[in-house]
């Protein structure tokens, strides 16, 4: 055999052995990269099987949710009955555990559980916590709706639309509506929200529901004159209406002026006192209001003692952000503008009957403007 023939034979043997090793069932090739290489070379072929991993984890997540739910339902019926503190703690823990699961799987499972109609009362009061999520859930269905809103806002909005059409529960209506009302994905148009608001106010039997009460925040979030009008004309709890109108006026004073005649007395004085005095259009309405022959002494007194009203209610709200309607620069500018107008009112014979109140108001505004110099 020639030298070249030997070389070809050797080469063929090497290739042949290599092919055998490579293709032998169960055989192991010599690793190209050492097992503990400091810089492993990652290739597409070395990637884990994402699809299989995901399927496994999705199945596990579904199993966990179902198991948690079944245990929760049974536990609420256990004897001795769990305390409210224990129930609240367990629901919080369940929410935290579910938040770690795949949001899509969680949302699908929650929709299934809601569709099943299964429910239990928890004994907890309906309570709104930070960012409009609940910190008290009277029923497990409300708990599910609350979790759904966090896990998948878009699916929550779709679920909400179905639920709003059929639920007889004020609390469920209120929580479902949140998915359409809060900023971000799933937010419905103002016209749609206004229609739901009117639908809700039409349920007189819901007047004592806490969820219904918290849902009055929707008017402030919509911010339209139509929403304000619906609220002003609502014949329910006057204290609720007053608070909702007040928070509305604090954020949208110009809108409230459009429907000022829909309310009267001290409630109207509170709304009028929230105008921005540095807006000539708003002050023109206030000027007319103060000169109106229909203005009672009590309403005028209430207005002049609080104008420009910058106190407010605040707290966690179901739909909108925690109210913080005023800021320093705006208040200072408003006070200066108000003082200029009040200086005129004090010397206006047509307003002589309010002179004592006007002088007192002038003094307050003078103090405040001096404090900000």
């Amino acid at each position, binding site marked *: 055999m020639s030298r070249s023939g030997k070389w070809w034979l050797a080469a063929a043997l090497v290739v042949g052995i290599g092919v055998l090793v490579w293709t032998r069932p169960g055989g192991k090739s010599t690793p190209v990269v050492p097992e503990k290489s400091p810089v492993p070379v990652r290739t597409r072929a070395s990637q884990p099987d*994402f699809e299989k991993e995901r399927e496994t984890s999705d199945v596990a997540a579904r199993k966990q949710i179902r198991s948690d739910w079944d245990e929760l339902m049974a536990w609420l019926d256990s004897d001795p009955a769990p305390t409210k503190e224990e129930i609240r703690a367990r629901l919080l823990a369940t929410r935290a555990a579910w938040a770690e699961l795949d949001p*899509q799987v969680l949302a699908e499972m929650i929709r299934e559980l809601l569709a099943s109609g299964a429910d239990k009362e928890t004994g907890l009061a309906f309570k709104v916590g930070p960012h409009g999520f609940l910190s008290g859930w009277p029923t497990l269905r409300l708990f599910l709706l609350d979790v759904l809103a966090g896990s998948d806002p878009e699916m929550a909005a779709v679920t909400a639309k179905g639920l709003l059409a059929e639920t007889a529960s004020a609390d469920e209506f209120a929580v479902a509506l949140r998915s359409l009302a809060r900023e971000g994905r799933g937010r419905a148009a103002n016209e749609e929200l206004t229609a739901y608001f009117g639908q809700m106010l039409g349920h007189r039997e819901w007047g004592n529901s806490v969820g219904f009460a918290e849902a009055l925040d929707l008017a402030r979030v919509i911010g339209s004159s139509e929403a304000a009008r619906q609220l002003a004309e609502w014949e329910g709890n006057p204290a*609720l209406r007053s608070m909702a109108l007040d928070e509305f006026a604090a954020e949208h004073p110009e809108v409230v002026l459009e429907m000022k005649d829909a309310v009267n007395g*001290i409630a109207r004085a509170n709304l009028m006192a929230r105008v921005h005095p540095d807006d000539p259009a708003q002050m023109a309405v206030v000027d007319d209001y103060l000169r109106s022959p229909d203005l009672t002494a009590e309403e005028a007194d209430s207005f002049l003692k609080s104008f420009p009203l910058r106190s407010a209610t*605040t707290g966690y709200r179901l739909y909108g952000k925690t109210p*913080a309607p*005023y800021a320093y620069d705006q208040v200072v500018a408003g006070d200066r503008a108000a003082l200029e107008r009040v200086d005129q009112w004090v010397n206006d014979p047509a307003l002589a009957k309010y002179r004592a109140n006007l002088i007192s108001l002038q003094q307050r505004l003078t103090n405040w403007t001096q404090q900000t110099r």
Partner: protein
Amino acid sequence: MKIANFPVIGIVLLAGTTLSPAAESKTLNPVKVPARQIDEDPFRVNGVVLSGDMRGSGFCAWNPKTFFSAAHVVFDDTAGKWGEPPIWNAKANSKALDETKSIQSRGYYRWTNYSEIVALDGNNGDAFGRDVILGFSFSKLISGKPAVLNLKGVSDLKKPIKTMITGYPAENDYLGVPIDGYYLHKTGPGVTPYKVSWEKALHATLVSTGGGNSGGPIWTRNPDLGWTAAGVLVGGLPSEATVYAFSGDINSLTRAVTPLIGKNLPDSISVGNASASSRFYVYDHSKVVPDGVAKWTDFPISVDGFELGETVKTVKLSFKIKTTHQGDLQVLLTGPGGYGKVIHNEEGAGKDNLILVDEDVSEPFTDIDPTGKWILRVQDRLKGDIATVQYVQLEIAAEGTAVPVP
């Protein structure tokens, strides 16, 4: 206590009519604070709060331009009237108030919600459950630092620890004795654990105050900070007291008032423990996000180290995702309990690498408990460009034990 070093005759003269009955009483009773102690902590931050015909107490805390008091002192719930903003009289301690030292506040924010109204109508609630306001002024209300808040008041007051109520009672409720003038009184110190009455309203027996004391602070003793304000006195009967206890909710109230008290607010500073300080948490493994799959890939970060009761103040997010097409990506940050924020929603088209550095993403997470699992969730929704998350960092600042003192 300094008072023990003074002759008995001095104590009697300084304490006036309330000392002797208090000494005989089995309840804690209001005792006049000696004039020489008025400028000391925690007495120097107290003030009389006047609102129309109402007289109550208050205390300057959190910021020199703000004071806490009880809502029923300043707001006429029955009539629904706001009225004139309350008048603050710092360190009053005389027969009559010195009007030249009075400060007309600019207003107040009242911490309440709609459900409270329904609960009260149905007798399911307690008028004191949310009976707290934070007044604000354009002027400083006291000289020196305001009181430090104990935002764990709601849990601390239930413990057998030393507490004290201060304020300006117009009567001794237990003895039925009127107290003339505007003299600062203290009830305690004493060890009287409180129990839950309704939500944040806590109740104790064997503690007496009196009308006019409403809105005054209940103090707890902190080994590092001295007396800290743990709540507001909101009601009482002879030998009983109800307080609105502070919790993380108060951070929302102070946050709402913050825009009103002027510019150049000092930055938060740490006041003892871990309050208002930042902690960093990192996910530092490189991981490929499945290409063209509309499913989330999670990058979990376990957050711990915060004290019980502390709540999120700020969250800053940093991460680097290596990609050749930002428009493929959706990114979501989830906090404990499911609070979430969309960070990136397929914007950026064909730009390379999605990088965030110290992005403030606080808004949806403020006031929640920071402890637990935070998850950055990423989807690569379009095929063709491989995205790799290279690191994720969270910087979380929380408030709890005490809020910032300017």
